[in-house]
């Protein structure tokens, strides 16, 4: 693994909680790794297994789905659906020979800016330990560009 490897992580964030938490983390001037690229979704229940798989297929080193705390979903159970779908994608990735830890679900409250920063750190460290996505031939080049 290259010492210069900087993971590229895509985070599907629910607009009601984790996206607000990411916003708050910024407002609080909290420092966290810049590797996480946020995609705003109306609810993590909107995240389809295909979104995650295609993201990995297209070369992201990791994907996280970040929803509300369990029981706090604006749409009641979107985050529970997301949790199951993340587990489903992890099984598929495992079958396909890719580390399932590259995909992970987080639950972060809107008021938890530090929680988002911690999740970003945790995910970045996990992916850093795993190394670049083996599917991405451009990983090294892109990492250098980051």
């Amino acid at each position, binding site marked *: 693994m290259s010492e210069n490897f900087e993971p590229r992580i895509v985070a599907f964030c629910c607009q009601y909680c984790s996206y607000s938490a990411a916003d708050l983390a910024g407002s609080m001037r909290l420092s966290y790794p810049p590797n996480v690229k946020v995609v705003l979704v109306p609810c993590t229940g909107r995240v389809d297994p295909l979104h995650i*798989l*295609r993201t*990995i297929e297209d070369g992201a080193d990791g994907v996280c789905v970040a929803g509300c705390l369990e029981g706090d979903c604006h749409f009641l159970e979107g985050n529970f659906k997301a949790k199951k779908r993340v587990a489903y994608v992890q099984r*598929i990735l495992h*079958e*396909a*020979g890719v580390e399932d830890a590259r995909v992970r679900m987080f639950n972060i409250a809107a008021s938890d800016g530090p929680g988002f920063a911690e999740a970003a750190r945790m995910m970045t460290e996990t992916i850093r330990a795993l190394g670049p996505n083996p*599917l991405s031939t451009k990983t090294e080049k892109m990492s250098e560009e980051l």
Partner: protein
Amino acid sequence: MIIAERKPIKELLEMLVGHDHVLLVGCKGCVTVCNAGGVREVGVLASALRIARRRQGRPIGIDEMTLDRQCEPEFISWLEEPLREKGYTAVMSAACSVGPQYIAERFDRVAVMPALNTKFIGGTLEHGVWAEFCRACGNCGIHNFGGLCPITRCSKGLLHGPCAGSSGSKCEVRPEVDCIWHLIYQRMKNLGQIEKLKALKPAKDWSGYWSGGVRRVVREDLTL
């Protein structure tokens, strides 16, 4: 509907050895309803197979297409153009086993593989859970049993009441399964037809089931 489920990726990869350009064909019929082979599942499977092959260092091109139904030759013919123009060496069918068989009969120079295991004729118990309801025995008699099928839903296929293993209204073979004879009794009681259950049933005519070769249904009024 026909219930099917995806084969393990490992098994599918073994089928794909030697192929680098494949068409994965889904079906918008039963296997879409049971989330095994519709547009979305075809997308997920294609992605998973591409990822797996890239991991093996042998990338594969997998295009996706989903037919309205694969159990009718009319729709299978939609494959003619892509097969002629794209030069696929194989077609993987995400349908019940009728689909790949029809594709194989129609196109004799392309390898055909089943992506799914066809399980049974069933229905949805809850979202994501399916169970067998019909064994297609060819001679339906559920009117004698309150509209419920003991041939399929009794683990022992009994026609004259529950076995001695039934306990607490559950099956002794599969404790999570309701004893269908318990349900039949309740239904017949509600219908005021308990007496009907006492009647001796003649031996079932199984000739319409696993005998006499391939079964066929002909509707003269519909044939051309």
